[in-house]
C-alpha cells in the first residue's frame, strides 16, 4: 500500500525511474541535512549550556574572590560594587551574598524581599534558570556564600536567532548542491540504462534483432546490457532458425494439403469399398437364407402330391362323359373319390407351407433391400425407429442363418423367450444378430460334428434388451479382444474383417453397445449386444441383467 507521501511525491508507479531516483536522493539528503542541522543545533545548545554554566561559574568565582576583601572589611559599598561587576553578563538576573547565617550582605538585580532565604541554594540548571553557589573563603575560612542567578533563555534565543538563518542558508545551498549533483549522478548512473532502454525500444518497434545496446561497463547496468545483447544474439539466431523453419514448414503445409486431398479421395474410395463390403456381407447372409427357402420350395415341389392328382385324373378321364356308372359300378370309383379327398388335404398343407416359404422369401428379399438401402445411407441417415419384439428379431436372425446352421451341423440352444418389446432400428439389430450367429457358426467349425452348439439368449430390464450369442468354439486370444472390432481384422481364412466392425458401429448408432468376452483360445466366446428400449434410454456400454438364458 503506497503511503500518501509516496503518492504525492511520485504520483504513481508510472513516474520515471530518473524522477523517482532524483526525488528519493534529494529527499534523503534534505532529511539528512535537516536532521544533521537539528543535531548540530542540539549539540550547540548543549555546548552553549555547558559553556554558559562554566562562564557563570567562573564569573561567580571571580566576583566571590573580589568580594572576599570587602566582606572581610565589612565594606558593604565595596561588596555591592563588586557584585555590580556581574552586569557584564546581561543573562545574570540576580545575585546575593549571604553570611553563614543566611543573612543577605549584598544584592544584585533584586530586592531583599525577592532574595529571601527561600531562594534556591542548589547549583545547576532548572529549566531556563541556572544557579551558581560560590563560597567566599579566606585562608580556609568561609566568610560568606555568593548565589548568582542567570537565565539561559536569552543565550538560547540568541543562538537560535543566529542559527536559523545560517541553517536556512546552509539548507538552500546544500539542497541546490544536492540537486545539481543528483542530476549529474543520475545522468552518469542512468546513462547506460537510458541507452539500454533506447535499444530495447528500437528492438520492440522494428523487431530488428541485429541492434546492440552500447557497452556500459561492468556494473549492474553493464551486466544487464551484456545480457540483453547476448539475448538479442540468441534471439537473432532463433529468429533466423525460425524463419528457416517457417519456410520449410510452409512447404510442408503445402505438401500436407496435397496429401490431405489425396487422403480424402483415398478415404472416400475406402469408405465406398467398406460400404460395398458391408452390403455384400449382409446380403450374402440373407442370400443364404433365401437359398434355403428356394431349395425347400424346390424339394417340396419335387415331392408334391400334385402328380398323384394326375393319376387320379387319368383314371377318371374315360368316364368324363358318363361318370355315374364309374362311381356307381366300378370298384375304383369310390377309391378315386377317397384319394381325391385325401389329396386335397395334402395339397392344402403344401399350399400353406409354400405360402410360408414364399413369405420368408419375401422377407429375405425385403431385408436385402433394407440392407442395401441402409448401407447406402450408412453414415448419413438414421434408421427408422419401430416398435418391435426382440424375440422376433432373434428368430429372424436364426432363420436367416438356418441354411448355414444346417450345413455346418450347428444346433441352436435357446430357452423359450418372453416378448421383448423395444423401439429401435430393426435392420441394424437384425444385421448385428445375423452377423453374430454367422460368426458363432464358423467358430464352431473346429468342434466335432454333432457337438456344435450355439447358445442364444435375450433378456430385458427397465432400460435395455440384452442379446447374448455364445459358442464353445475357437475362442479369442486376449491380445485380439481389443482388435476384433477394428475394420479388416479377422482370424478366419475366408473372412474379410468387416462384420464385427460394422456391427459395433451399428450398435453405437442405435445407442447401444457390442461387447466380446472370451477366456482365451479354444475356450469359446460370448458376444453381448445391448439395445436400449428406446434410442435415448441407454448410453453405450451400459450392462443389463439377463432374464432368460440357456441352461
Amino acid at each position, binding site marked *: 500500500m503506497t503511503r500518501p507521501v509516496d503518492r504525492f511525491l511520485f504520483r504513481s508507479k508510472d513516474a520515471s525511474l530518473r524522477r523517482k531516483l532524483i526525488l528519493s536522493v534529494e529527499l534523503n539528503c534534505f532529511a539528512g541535512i535537516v536532521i544533521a542541522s537539528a543535531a548540530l543545533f542540539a549539540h550547540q545548545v548543549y555546548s552553549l549550556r555547558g559553556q554558559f554554566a562554566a562562564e557563570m561559574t567562573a564569573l561567580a568565582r571571580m566576583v566571590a*574572590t*573580589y568580594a*572576599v*576583601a*570587602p*566582606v*572581610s*572589611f*565589612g*565594606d*558593604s*559599598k*565595596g561588596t555591592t560594587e*563588586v557584585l555590580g561587576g556581574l552586569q557584564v553578563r546581561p543573562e545574570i538576573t540576580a545575585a546575593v551574598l549571604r*553570611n*553563614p547565617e543566611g543573612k543577605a550582605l549584598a544584592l544584585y538585580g533584586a530586592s531583599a524581599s525577592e532574595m529571601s532565604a527561600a531562594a534556591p541554594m542548589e547549583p545547576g540548571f532548572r529549566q531556563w534558570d541556572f544557579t551558581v553557589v560560590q563560597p567566599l573563603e*579566606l*585562608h580556609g*575560612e*568561609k*566568610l560568606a556564600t555568593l548565589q548568582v542567578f542567570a537565565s539561559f533563555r536569552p543565550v538560547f534565543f540568541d543562538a537560535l536567532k543566529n542559527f536559523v538563518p545560517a541553517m536556512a542558508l546552509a539548507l538552500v545551498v546544500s539542497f541546490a548542491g544536492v540537486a545539481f549533483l543528483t542530476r549529474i549522478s543520475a545522468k552518469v548512473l542512468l546513462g547506460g540504462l537510458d541507452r539500454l532502454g533506447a535499444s530495447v525500444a528500437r528492438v520492440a518497434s522494428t523487431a530488428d534483432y541485429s541492434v546492440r545496446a552500447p557497452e556500459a561497463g561492468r556494473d549492474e547496468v553493464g551486466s544487464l546490457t551484456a545480457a540483453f545483447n547476448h539475448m538479442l544474439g540468441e534471439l537473432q539466431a532463433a529468429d533466423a532458425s525460425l524463419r528457416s523453419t517457417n519456410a520449410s514448414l510452409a512447404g510442408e503445409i503445402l505438401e500436407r494439403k496435397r496429401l490431405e486431398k489425396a487422403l480424402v479421395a483415398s478415404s472416400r474410395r475406402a469408405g465406398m469399398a467398406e460400404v460395398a463390403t458391408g452390403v455384400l456381407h449382409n446380403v450374402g447372409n440373407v442370400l443364404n437364407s433365401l437359398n434355403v427357402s428356394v431349395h425347400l420350395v424346390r424339394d417340396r415341389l419335387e415331392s408334391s402330391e400334385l402328380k398323384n392328382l394326375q393319376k387320379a385324373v387319368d383314371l377318371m378321364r374315360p368316364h368324363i362323359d358318363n361318370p355315374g356308372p364309374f362311381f356307381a359300378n366300378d370298384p375304383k370309383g369310390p377309391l378315386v373319390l377317397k384319394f381325391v379327398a385325401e389329396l386335397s388335404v395334402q395339397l392344402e398343407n403344401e399350399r400353406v407351407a409354400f405360402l410360408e416359404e414364399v413369405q420368408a422369401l419375401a422377407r429375405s428379399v425385403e431385408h436385402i433391400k433394407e440392407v442395401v438401402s441402409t448401407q447406402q445411407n450408412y453414415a448419413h441417415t438414421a434408421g427408422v425407429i419401430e416398435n418391435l419384439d426382440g424375440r422376433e428379431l432373434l428368430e429372424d436372425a436364426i432363420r436367416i442363418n438356418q441354411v448355414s446352421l444346417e450345413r455346418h451341423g450347428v444346433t441352436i440352444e435357446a430357452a423359450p423367450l418372453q416378448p421383448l418389446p423395444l423401439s429401435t432400428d430393426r435392420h441394424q439389430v437384425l444385421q448385428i444378430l445375423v452377423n453374430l450367429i454367422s460368426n458363432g457358426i464358423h467358430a464352431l467349425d473346429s468342434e466335432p460334428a454333432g457337438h456344435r452348439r450355439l447358445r442364444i439368449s435375450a433378456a430385458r430390464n427397465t432400460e435395455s434388451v440384452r442379446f447374448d450369442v455364445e459358442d464353445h468354439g475357437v475362442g479369442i486370444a486376449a491380445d485380439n479382444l481389443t482388435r476384433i472390432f477394428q475394420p479388416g481384422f479377422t482370424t478366419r481364412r475366408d473372412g474379410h474383417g468387416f462384420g464385427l466392425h460394422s456391427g459395433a458401429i451399428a450398435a453405437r448408432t442405435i445407442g447401444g453397445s457390442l461387447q466380446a468376452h472370451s477366456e482365451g483360445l479354444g475356450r469359446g466366446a460370448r458376444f453381448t449386444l445391448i439395445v436400449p428400449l428406446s434410442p435415448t434410454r441407454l448410453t453405450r456400454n451400459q450392462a443389463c441383467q439377463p432374464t432368460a438364458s440357456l441352461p
Partner: protein
Amino acid sequence: MAFARKILLGILLLFIPMAAQAADSSLEYRVKAGFLFHFAMFVEWPATILPPGAPLRIGLLAPPEVCSDIEQSLAGKSAAGHPLVTERVTTEALAKDAPHILFVQRSADISPSALAQILGDRPVLVVGETSGFASSGGAIGFVIRGDTLRFQVNLAAASHANLQLSGQLASLAEIVKAR
C-alpha cells in the same frame, strides 16, 4: 566557624558610624585593631621573615591606653595561620628589632619618612593615622570618609619594604603616591 563569626562581629562593630569617633576613643582603636587584623590577612611577608606558623608581631607606637585597647582586641587571634602578637615599641627599639606590622598612633611624634630611615628596607607594614600618612611615605594610612573609616595605600612604600599587598586589599583602598 566561631572565628568567622568573631570576625563578622568585629566587622559589624567596625562599621558603626564614626561621627562621634572622638567621643569614644576606645571604640575607634578597637575598630582600627580589626583593620590591622585584616591587613595581616591581605599582606604577604617574605617567607624568611615570616615562616609558616610563626607569630606575626604587631608593634604599637602609641599611648598605653590605646595599646591596651588594641591588645585586647587582637588577643588570641591568628591571621592566615600566624598567631598575632602585639608589642609596645619605641622609636629607639625599632632600629634594632622591627615587628611585622607597626601601628603609629597620631601622638607619636615621628614622621613617616623618619620611620623609613629607621626601618630601612626591612619588611615592616607601617600603618599610621595622621593626615597624609600614606602619601608621606607610610604604607597604609587611615582616613575618614564621611562616617566611614577607610584607608589609603602607598604601593611604592609597601614595595620598598618587600611586602606583597593583595589586589583585593588594594581594591578597597585609596591608592596614593609619595609626595
